């Protein structure tokens, strides 16, 4: 690990000033950053430790019915907060399907949004990677790429965004609150992560020194609590990143879908909202054929970036299955194997 200056500011303002220098990086839990630094993938010259900043670890109910999650709230604390999990069961399930208990106990909300891809060529400093070293080329093209992107990728980069948490967040119109030298601003999560295009090294809309202070969920997101699921196919039962995942949610009134939400994970360089698929579900009665049609629409623009054509049909099936399970009702408790397509769904459903 390259050495670095270590600073521990007492306020957000001081943190922003310290992190606005070139080569600086924010340190929260460090569960991703320290791993990248050990491997020589991230080489910050200065670490600005924000893990102890006050007031960023709260989950607040705002007067307009929205919920504000501080950037330093731990993944486990959010998933296990009873009031949050009751209103946002899909988000709780996604959180609990990610990483391990130890990592969820440490990793923060802000850090989850900013975690880097798990592309093996990005991690291997002996490989060419345009994201790590702009202009170097991409060894994932023509390499072992069965887990790479099928949507939103470019010739320069075919890596996927690894977050589970971000998938339901983008489905529910989450907004990212950031603070920086020019003051506070808000970025819809769907605009927060950037597609790679010709500049895969630019991954988010954050300007240098800007810091995530909170993630906000609008009140409307709670109206999907009774019919929502997060499903995630992994290469082992637990503690693995998504091959393909989907957050699917429905608001059903009098047996008809009033509104649908859908986002996919593991398939694109960012959490992938599928609005066109949502639109064809509105006003219809839920059934398997309809969900299959929505899945086809969601994957209409997909194309393999390598030996990963199988992910397109896999994603269609996961979308259709997630909607079918969502229509049946959100389980009253997150299943023992969160988000597993193989888990038996039994017991009570939520009556929100």
């Amino acid at each position: 690990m390259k050495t670095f200056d270590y600073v521990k500011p007492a306020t957000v303002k001081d943190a922003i000033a310290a992190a606005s220098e070139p080569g600086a990086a924010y340190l929260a839990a460090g569960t991703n950053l320290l791993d990248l630094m050990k491997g020589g993938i991230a080489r910050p010259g200065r670490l600005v430790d924000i893990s102890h900043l006050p007031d960023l670890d709260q989950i607040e109910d705002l007067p307009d019915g929205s919920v504000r999650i501080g950037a330093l709230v731990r993944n486990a604390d959010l998933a296990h907060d009873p009031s949050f999990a009751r209103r946002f069961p899909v988000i709780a399930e996604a959180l609990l399907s990610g990483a391990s208990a130890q990592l969820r106990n440490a990793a923060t909300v802000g850090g989850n949004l900013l975690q880097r891809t798990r592309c093996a060529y990005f991690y291997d400093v002996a490989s060419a990677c345009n994201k790590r070293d702009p202009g170097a080329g991409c060894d994932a093209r023509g390499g072992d790429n069965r887990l790479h992107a099928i949507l939103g990728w470019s010739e320069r980069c075919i890596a996927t965004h690894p977050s589970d948490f971000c998938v339901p967040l983008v489905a529910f119109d989450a907004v990212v609150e950031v603070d920086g030298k020019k003051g506070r601003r808000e970025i819809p999560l769907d605009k927060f992560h950037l597609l790679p295009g010709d500049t895969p090294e630019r991954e988010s809309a954050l300007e240098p020194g800007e810091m995530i202070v909170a993630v906000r969920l609008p009140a409307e997101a709670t109206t999907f609590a009774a019919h929502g699921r997060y499903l995630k196919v992994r290469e082992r039962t637990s503690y693995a990143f998504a091959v393909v995942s989907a957050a699917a949610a429905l608001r059903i009134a009098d047996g008809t879908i009033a509104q649908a939400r859908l986002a996919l994970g593991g398939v694109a360089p960012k959490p992938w909202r599928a609005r066109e698929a949502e639109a064809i579900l509105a006003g219809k009665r839920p059934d398997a054929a309809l969900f299959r049609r929505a899945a086809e629409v969601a994957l209409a623009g997909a194309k393999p970036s390598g030996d990963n054509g199988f992910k397109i049909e896999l994603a269609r099936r996961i979308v259709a299955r997630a909607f079918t399970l969502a229509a049946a009702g959100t389980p009253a408790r997150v299943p023992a194997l969160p988000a597993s397509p193989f888990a038996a769904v039994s017991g009570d459903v939520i009556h929100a």
Partner: protein
Amino acid sequence: MGFSTTLTVNGVKRTIALDDPRVTLLDLLRERLELTGTKKGCDRGQCGACTVILDGRRINSCLALAISHDGADVLTIEGVARGDRLHPVQEAFLTHDGLQCGFCTPGQIMSAIGLIQEAQAGDDPERVREGMSGNLCRCSAYLGITEAVLEAQKVLDTASQREVA
């Protein structure tokens, strides 16, 4: 540049001078405090051998900078027994053969203590397995580990009920 960090480790307050900000909590425990019960497996947050309880929560100590946790309370495998009396989780690992070579065992035991405190798994073996999935065991003693965690939880539940009564 010199730094120092003050930690309460297994109930004892220690102030440790650090000549380098890169020292992880794991390396601090092993190399500076000679508490080598906490193991370094992958050193990348994948295997769980370095699990300790930091401020009441189980974490991977290999992915924590010591300097970032100034003032924290750390419980390691060296701090769980009471003299010659093993912790109920240690006892249960012996009873149920929850180990073979033993390298992952300190991490397994610290993770199990954390899991029981978190109280999310109940008596469901599937929830216990899921909750322990951050601890790899290359000897594959998983069956015994799951049984040990379930039994230790029962013992600790009974003990805490006795305390309440």
